[in-house]
């Protein structure tokens, strides 16, 4: 069993805006291309050109259809990766200490050299956010691009996770959720950011901003009172036209 730190200095994480996510998968692929060439083993793909292609992805977008009691059905795109939980069950379940939560920033990582590929952590994670790499036999997960966010070889503005940097709709935000002055903290406050499955008691650091209400037409009636239907009377459209033109 592995212990979690009593507290972390920062709580780095993602804030994902479900109101804005168009489900384009940009974050999914950007994550894959960065992480297959950086921290730890590459993210392998099995049968990549065959019948059942399946590879390791640290971030996936799921699409759900929601049918509200009234109004048309809605479609919600739901990107999901490790939520870097404060009470991360994937860490405490790890028999070798390979899974750990960093004291300085709260990122949950796997030390691959200690990982025996037993899969207990994936079983313990209620979010299904960990993926066993089939080629390497080690557990892979979102690192919050730990090799980008402090990387002095990268311009400061790009020291953010690859998924955040690439998101075309600006639906992904990164920062310290322990800092009330941070942009992400304020965004969560303003938009009512939510925990995913809070009943699991994992205290996820990542937050989701809920979709704003859709298909709620405003009360508006600037067209009225409607003009008379006739086009040739003084009260009709051309009467209006003449009066309006006089003012121009």
């Amino acid at each position: 069993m592995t212990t979690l730190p009593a507290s972390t200095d920062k709580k780095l994480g993602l804030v994902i805006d479900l109101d804005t996510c168009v489900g384009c998968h940009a974050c999914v692929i950007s994550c894959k291309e960065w992480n297959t060439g950086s921290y730890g083993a590459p993210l392998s793909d099995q049968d990549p050109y065959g019948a059942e292609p399946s590879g390791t992805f640290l971030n996936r977008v799921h699409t759900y259809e929601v049918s509200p009691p009234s109004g048309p059905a809605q479609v919600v795109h739901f990107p999901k990766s490790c939520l870097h939980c404060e009470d991360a069950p994937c860490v405490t379940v790890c028999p070798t200490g390979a899974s750990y939560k960093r004291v300085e920033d709260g990122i949950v990582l796997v030390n691959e050299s200690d990982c025996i590929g037993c899969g207990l952590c994936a079983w313990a994670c209620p979010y299904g956010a960990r993926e066993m790499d089939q080629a390497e036999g080690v557990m892979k997960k979102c690192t919050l691009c730990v090799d980008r966010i402090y990387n002095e070889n990268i311009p400061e503005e790009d020291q953010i996770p690859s998924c955040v940097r690439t998101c075309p709709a600006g639906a992904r935000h990164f920062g310290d959720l322990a800092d009330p002055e941070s942009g992400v903290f304020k965004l969560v406050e303003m938009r009512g950011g939510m925990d995913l499955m809070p009943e699991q008691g994992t205290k996820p650091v990542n937050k989701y901003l809920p979709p704003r209400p859709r298909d709620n037409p405003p009360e508006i009636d600037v067209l009225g009172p409607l003009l008379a239907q006739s086009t040739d009377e003084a009260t009709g459209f051309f009467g209006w036209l003449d009066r309006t033109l006089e003012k121009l």
Partner: protein
Amino acid sequence: MTQPKLDTSPAVADEIRKTTCYMCACRCGINVHLKDGKVKYIEGNRDHPINKGVLCAKGSAGIMQHYSPARLRAPLKRVGPRGSGEFEEISWEEALTTAAEWLASVRETAPEKLAFFTGRDQSQSFTSWWAQQFGTPNYAAHGGFCSVNMAAAGIYTLGGAFWEFGSPDWERTELFMIFGVAEDHDSNPIKMGLGRLKERGAKVIGVNPVRTGYNAIADEWVGITPGTDGLFILALIHELLKAGKVDLDYLIRYTNAPFLVDDDPDSPTYGLFLRDGEGPDKVWIWDRVTNSKQPLDKPGVKPALRGRVEIDGKPYRPVFELLAEKYLDEANAAEAVAERCGISADRIKRLAAEIAHTAFEKEITIEQEWTDFKGETHKTITGRPVSFHAMRGISAHSNGFQTCRALHVLQLLLGSVEVPGGFRFKPPYPKPVYGHPRPHHTVTPGKPLDGPHLGYPRGPEDLALDANGNAKRIDKAFTWENPLSAHGMMHMVISNAHAGDPYPIDVLFMYMANMSWNSSMNTSQVMDMLTDTDETGEYKIPKIIYSDAYSSEMVAFADLILPDTTYLERHDCISLLDRPISEVDAMADSIRWPVVEPDRDVKGFQSALLELGVKLALPGMVDKDGTAIYSDYADYMINHERRPGIGPLAGWRGNGEGRGRGAPNPEQINRYIENGGFWMDHIPQEAAFLKPMNKAYQDWAVERGIFDAPQPYVFQLYVEHLQKFRRAAAGHGENQPPDHLRERITETMDPLPVWYPPFEETRVDVADYPLHAITQRPAAMYHSWGSQNAWLRQIHGHNPLYISGDLWEEHGFADGDWAWLTSHHGKIKIPVARMDALNPKTVWTWNAIGKRKGAWALHENAPETTKGFLLNHLIHELLPEKGDGLRWSNSDPITGQAAWYDLRVRIEKAGADKQSRPDIPAQNSPVGKGPDALRYGEDF
């Protein structure tokens, strides 16, 4: 416990090279990270005007495209029967010599026997020039089966189209309404813009039968019935007019609302403008103050918008009166169209009210002095914060041109084009019809064509017809069947060439167009046409040359393959002569350059085409002694001049200071590379809005070489060019349509937008085919390219047919079921899935996921080939016969745009299956199959 020590600052790359993406048509700037000579990581270029740092899934998956196992490796000569995919690798010398031999005799005797058509070509200003120098009239790119309705309606109405040629004013708009927009032009800018609108709290309304992507995040979804958008838009116009919610000041100043129209039905010029000389805007208006006719551009006139006047004994009425009468008619009322559109009358009225409220109650005033083309100076600019975007969903119908026109007329009535908060153009647009060429088609053996192939006809005199009224182009573009086919009609080329109608051809030469598969209607029969032989055993289309970078389905049908490079291995120019990357406040262009060198015997197609041009001694490509003028495409990009001082690239011309104009600069490409692969020049502030009428913009555009003299114009509510075709149909003028087309021309080519039912549903019994069937492009795939991409195909590896909950229940479908889908033309067997966020009369699927076995280096049991499918098998390039012996194209009657989305079908439950039908036999792969496992990045 102790944490492992991490290196959080590992070296990322040896070098970052900045070039332009080509994973779709968006043309984002990318930073390609190279490590040990390999591509390690691709990210968006933050400085780039298109994507400002972001990048979509396709762009990030560029690594897998660049290293795709489907890449062709060397020129190929066909050794088996056509369609089999049996090839032998040959040298470039042999390939180009063979091509030159085939083409030289064609050029000397009958240049029109070469049909040269390009697909997702981003070098159309070059390929069209090559075709022009060759002398064939048969050139176009793929616009005819893409979105020419959108393009042509935009040009004829506004002087520019949606696509990527303009943009909503993302920073100011308060209401953004999209029609028929899925992933399309413009890809990342729309996602970025939507994100920005959400951040600002602006409202987004999505009008689309299918609620995916952008429509999923829209604040309000209008699940319209396909093909009825025009009706819906005209109802919005009706309601706005009835309530007096139109911008009269804007209409008078910036549109042809006050133009006087001949109102005598017996006059040869009935429906045409009362003119004051030859200039495009040399027209008379009626002055309300003096009660007399006055020139449009006379300062101080107060044009009338209504009233019939007699001038020299003839009656005239202003455009606006005709427009108001037409759309105030109760046939356009919300109640009259609601059922057909699948939108309630109350909702149509409420949407009209919201549009009006935003446009007029949230008016914007910007303090910016500017001078109009009449010389009048204005202290401010008024903005209307309502903007629109539309693409394929409304344009890929046989009523698409007029539907797109209707939307542009709605924009104009609201006064929301080229103003703050509205829709704004990107240079070189806006540009009026008269600033575009007319179509050219005069062939002289051994000589270049008489001018550019494609253009915008002004009237029947510009049609590409011979003295007997026969089509001069193989695709029959610019004929009475589709007079304004400004992008050509690539989807008709194979069918017409096979039929020898209007004449047989000798060589079909195509580039980057998967015409034997997802880019053709009627895919199964197209494959038959490509392999069909005459009585002597010769192929009916005798020779086929094809260039592609990958082992696509079309490769199997070519006799000679010229293998292209990947986009990271090539030079390209994203030129202002073509489809540039400009912004609303700046002109911009960009390049591609070989950020990695090819490791195969391949060549950038454009360089290969230049070499072929040299072998054929084409004018402009060789000098007097026959030596090559350009060593390759990069040399052409630098040194070619289309007009003196105007070349493919606008930046750093002359001594390096030249912007738009200047002599060729040998350092030009290096300067682009130093600047991140692009060049940008900002529009002066006083020139930023109302560009067609803005003197400062017109002067700046001339200075920058966008045009050579100012081209001011007003927006065209009423398109007089259309009326000229109708006058011909009524028997006036020298150029007369065939009798069987007179009625259709009169009905469809109305100078004011009209709606008519999509053709297919008027030719089939809709009770037999009660459903509409359409496709959408997924955001993570681009046409056929994506399936060879190991990462992207894990997102979209197969495509079910999505059907609504009502239909699901009605047919008793269950998860895992398959269905037969039948049209008047064919029948396919496919997997189905339920989706409730869908118009109940519509079924749909993702576009171009289905693949032929053996293509794209996929294994033969790949889900793209077993469960994937194309709707194309159900769509004929011709309409159902009506017994008149004529071939009626399944296209828009005005532009020839392929009417993909007119398709009507019925569905029946089928048992479970493992193979979609038709199951086309496999093609051999000239490149083998992709590997069984990947660990990309293990070297890093």
